[in-house]
Structure formats: structure tokens, C-alpha cells
């Protein structure tokens, strides 16, 4: 029996989307915790926060590009400046409904971004990410 991921961070202003993704991830039963941030600023605050000196350091961040306040791209700029112990353990995945190839190129060229996926996520995609990066997990 492999162990679950400690935490997954969803960064998206679309609450319907968050609801749906939470439902999907819960049904897959792969993580101890799902944290939702409604924009980039909130997400950064969460990453910087600590309990007993320990930062959350989620296993995966699913990041929406198109958001109010700090959008996905701006979030990436700020995220890069964080200390390593504040960053995600392994993976940062960008999410979008955009079909714009320019966005795809931009995401691919950023080393922090593991993958670029169209919304919505489905079980197959999440499963692939876990298989690749968290082979000792479920």
C-alpha cells in the first residue's frame, strides 16, 4: 500500500472548476489534503505560511492562467523568488481553457512548469502525473 500525497494546491478563481477538481481528486483518494486558493496572491500567501515552522510545500500545484489580481504568469514570476522550502515538492501544472498555441509555447519554455493542460482535468491525466513523479505513491 503506497502512501498518499501530502497536499495538492488548486489555484483558480473559478469555484465551479475548483469544486469539480476537488470532487475528482477526492474520488481518486490520492492526497491527505486539498488546498484551494482563489488567486495568485492567496496562493503565494499560503505557500509562505507555516505551521510550527513548516511550510505547506504541496506535492502538486494546479495553476490557472487567467485569473484576476495576480494571473498565472505573474504568479510564476513571484513563485520563482520563493525559497525552495516554500515551493512545491515537484510539480507545477498550468491549467487553462486557452487553445492559444502561444500560451502553450510560453508555458513549455518555463522550467518551473511541468505540464500544460486544458481544463478540466480528468482522472487519466492526474494518474499519469502521479505515476511519473510519485511512483512510490498510489
Amino acid at each position, binding site marked *: 500500500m503506497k502512501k498518499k500525497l501530502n497536499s495538492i494546491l488548486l489555484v483558480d478563481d473559478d469555484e*465551479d472548476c475548483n469544486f*469539480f477538481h476537488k*470532487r475528482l481528486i477526492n474520488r481518486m483518494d490520492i492526497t491527505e489534503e486539498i488546498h484551494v486558493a482563489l488567486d495568485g496572491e492567496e496562493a503565494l500567501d499560503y505557500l509562505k505560511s507555516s505551521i510550527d515552522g513548516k511550510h505547506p510545500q504541496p506535492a502538486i500545484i494546479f495553476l490557472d492562467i487567467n485569473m484576476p489580481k495576480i494571473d498565472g504568469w505573474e504568479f510564476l514570476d513571484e513563485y520563482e523568488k520563493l525559497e525552495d522550502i516554500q515551493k512545491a515538492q515537484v510539480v507545477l501544472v498550468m491549467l487553462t*481553457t486557452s*487553445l*492559444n498555441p502561444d500560451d502553450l509555447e510560453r508555458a513549455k519554455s518555463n522550467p518551473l512548469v511541468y505540464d500544460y493542460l486544458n*481544463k*478540466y482535468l480528468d482522472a487519466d491525466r492526474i494518474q499519469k502525473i502521479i505515476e511519473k513523479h510519485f511512483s512510490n505513491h498510489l
Partner: protein
Amino acid sequence: MNYQQDELYDLIRFDDSVLEFIKGTALDGLYYWDLSTPQNDWVDDKMKRTLTAEGDTHVIWRNLIHPEDQRLIIESFENHCENEADPIDIVVKYNHQNGSILYFKYNGKVIRDDVGQPIGILGAHVDITKFIEREKKLSIAENQFRGAFEHSALGMALVSTDGKWLKVNKKLCNIVGYSEKELLAKTFQEITHPDDLDADLNQVQLLLDDKITGYEMEKRYFHKDGHIVWVLLNVSLVRDTDRNPVHFVSQILDITHRKKTEDELRQVTDRLTLAVRGSKIGIWEYDIVNDNLVGDDAQLRLYGYSKGRFSVSLEEWLSSIHPEDVDQCRRDARLAINGEKEFNTEFRVVWPDKSIHYLRALSLVQNDEQGNPSRMVGTSWDMTEEKKSEELQRMMAANDSKRKEMEQFAYITSHDLREPLVTIQRYLDGFIEDYGQNIDADGRHYIEASIRASNHMQELIVGLLDYSRLSKEKELKLIDSNEVLTSVIEDLNALIMTTDAEIVYNDLPTLKAYPLELKLLFQNLIQNGIKFRKQDIKPRIQIQAEQISNGWQFSFTDNGIGIREKDYEKVFTLFRRLHNKSKYEGSGIGLAYAKKIVEIHHGKIWLKSSPNNGSTFYFSILTDNL
């Protein structure tokens, strides 16, 4: 002998007063020299008064004769004494006591005694000093004239009334190249250019008829060596006291050089005029003081008139200008006149035929001596063509930006539409997953219909997005259409397998095209060929290509349901579907998309078909010269 003469002679002999009268009126002095007492001589009182100041009597009169003439008079006496037929008839100069010289005509006669011995000389004097002096003066004047004539910087000539050169000066000889002798053997008519002769002769006649006092004309002579010499001729006529013509006096100025310069200037002017005419530039001049604007023919034409004169006031000019431009023209003119701004303005004029033309006008303002603006000199030319092409460019730019705007709009719209749609789709899926078991078949049908509709909508949006992205800048590449086709067949593998379709093609060309678009074009046509297959036979699509001018022509022939001729055009229209959605799925974008792809390859797409007999889609890719 006449008795009266006898009587007069007697009177003279005996009555001294008669002799005195004759002597006093006819002669200026009598002289007598008695040769028996040669130291003495005698002159009468009148002579004394003429030669001396105070009528001195103690003078030997012949000593007063000027030394130059002493010999002359002695010789003349001697000759006469020897031979009385040789008269004493000489002009003698006397020295007046005051030093001046007097001239006398002296006629003398020898007086002889009974045996013929000379005993005295009688002399009669006529004072001709006045005549001599006048003659001297005349001679001086003549010399002066001769000098002036000979050495004049002008060519000068005396010409007889019938045109013969009587006297010519050196300058004239130089001008026409003849020696004096040669020229004197000619008439002026002989060396005058025939085209100028009549005008000259007409003036000559007027002068001879005393209707004019002289004339001046420019005319041509032939130089001795044949070339033409231009001269300015000034002629007057000398008449005698009875006003009979004596001769002409002609002054001749060589103006060949000036004429040449004038000719050159005229040529330059002609060329300029021609250049201006060719360029259709109108020249105008505005007299500020008298409010009068005049222009040349080109200017007239710029305002739509073919004939007449361009001469108007400022207000009249403004009345021919497009009402929207009048204020600006009035302001610009005022600023230019006040010297605040140069006149360089564009405006529209309304021609008499109501057509509108764009003009541009430029001018300089000239000031009078007081520095007040007195006139404007300017040009104007037609800008209509330039304006049109500017307009066209503006329209094209506007179209371009509108097109980009449309693309942007389509892109954003489809993107934004897609987002809520995806949510609907996922939630519907989630609903079936989570609650599917709790609802009955009808309920599931509602949800499934909603899912199908939202899937179709998704297809439409993606199609629209692709379509809008088509005209974006891309790069032509040399590609092998066989490879493109192979890749399409791979992508469509599932469809081909399930329908058992057959794709037939032989060697296809390598050509310049936009890779992704060409692939989508192939894909669309093959998909259509399979989609619109007949139920009972397996689909077969044959692909061929042939070389045409500038590129290639492809054909995709299927064995499907076919298309009615009246629908040939419709199939290429965006969102146009010929069939019921339930029978043949589709967005209605495919062929519109195909058409757009062909167009960006400078080609055309068309088809031949009939219902139940399959369709052939043709398209051309004309990129050889790109």
C-alpha cells in the same frame, strides 16, 4: 555803247560822290600803289577803318599783308604785268593792328602810261573774313563728324535714297564682313535678309514721304561669309533746304549676341513652359492691392474650365472652393498676406460639373518698396489621384485592422464561450456519474441530449477558432504532399478503419505551401469524403494532382452521396449545412475552412458532382512565384 553808260561814266569821272557810293557799297576798300614812288601806297578811308584801330594814316599798307601772302601778291602782280589776261584775283590775309587776321578777296589791275609802261596798281578789296571763318567752322564740324563717323562704336553709313551705300565706317564693315570698297558697290537691299526687307522698305517709304522723321528696327543682314547678323538699325533722313531728300544716315548696332541670349532664354522659357504644362502645374498671381487673382491656362483647367481667362477676386476664388474648406483657405490666405505663415495648403475645388478635385497650392508673398505685401505668386496642382491612393491605403489599413479585430474577436469569443461550456460539459458528466443511477431513462435522456448539444457547441467553437487563426502570418515551406497525406491518413486511422475506407493516390508533388494548413485541407476533404458516404458501399477517395501554370491543381474524388449543382456554392459558406444534423454530424465549418486555406495559397476551390454519383473537389495551389 549805251548813252546811259556814257552818262554814268561821266558822272563817275566828274562827280566824286557817285564813285564814293559805288566804292562804299560794293567794295570794302580801294588800294592804289604808285609805282613811281613805290614806298608810298594808298588805301581809301573804309579800308583804313577796317585795318586799323584809329584810322592811322602813316602806314605802308602793303606791309600789313600777312607775311605768308607777300610772295603770292608780288608773283601775282608780276604775272599780271607781263600778261594782263592773267588777272590778279587772289585771297589775301591782312594783319589787323590788333593782331587779328582779316581775309580779303583782292582783284587788281595794272595802270599803264601812254607807252604801256606800268605806272601803278589799282586794287579792289572785298572783306571775306566772315565767309572764311564760317567755312573754317564748317570744316571743323565736318572733320568732327568724319572722326565720329569713322571711329564710332556703332556701324554708320550714309545711304542714298535708292539704297546705295555712299559712305560706310569701319565698324559697319566689321559687322557685315565686307571691305569698304566691296560694301560701296552694294545696296543695303542686297545684304538684308529677305524676311526683313519689306518692313525696312516700308519704313524707308514713310521716311521719304516725310511721314516719319526716322525709324528704328531690328533686322538681319547677311554677313559676307553667309551667316546671319542681327542688328538694331536706326535711320534718319537728311534733307536739303527745300526739303528734298539728300541721303539717309544709318546707325547700326550689332545685337547678334543679345539675340542669341534672348533665343536661349526663350528656349529655356519654352522648356519651362512645356515642363509646367506636362506637369499640369497652374501658375497664379494675386494682386493683393487690387484684389485680383490671375492664373494661366493650366490654372484654369485645375478649376474645371477648358477655356476663358482665370481672373477673379479673392471672394470669387473662394466661391469655387468646397464649402468645408473655405474657412481654412480664407484663413491661410490671410496669414500668408500678413506674412505670418507661408501659403502651403490643400483644399478641394468644386468644378462647374460638380465634381470634386483636390488641389494643393504654394506661394510666395512679395512686398512693395514700403515692405507691405503687394502680391502673391504661386503654383497649384491636382492632388486627386494621390488623395485617392491615400484613401485606398487608408481603407486597406482599416480593412486590415478590422480583419485583425475580427480575428481577435473570434478568438476571444470562442475562448470565452468555451470556458463556461467546458464547465457545463464536466458538470453534466459529473451528474451522470454521481446521480445517473438515481434517475430514470427519461431523465438520463435529458442529460445526454444536453451533453450532445454541448459537445456540438464545442466543435463549433473550436472550428471557429481555427478559422479565425487561418489568416495569421505564416511561412511558406517546400513540402512533400505525399508525406502530408500519409500523416493525415494516420490521424484519421480510427475513422478509416471503422468505415473501411480506401484512400487511393499515386505520386503527389512537392510544392510550396503552409504545412499545417495544407494538412488541414487534405484532412477536411478526406473526412468529408468519408462522412458523406453512401450507406451500402465502402467509401473510396482518389487523390490526383497535375501541374498548371504557377502551381498545382489537386482533385479529391469520392464515391459518396454527391451534391446538387445548385448547392455547389453553398457548401463553401461558413456554418452552412446541407444535411440534417442527426444524419451527418458536423460544424458546417469544414469547407469554408478549406476555401480559406486554398485562398491563402492564391488558389481556387470548386467541385463537380451530381446526387448519388459522388463528388470531385478541385483546388489549386498557386505558390510557384511566391
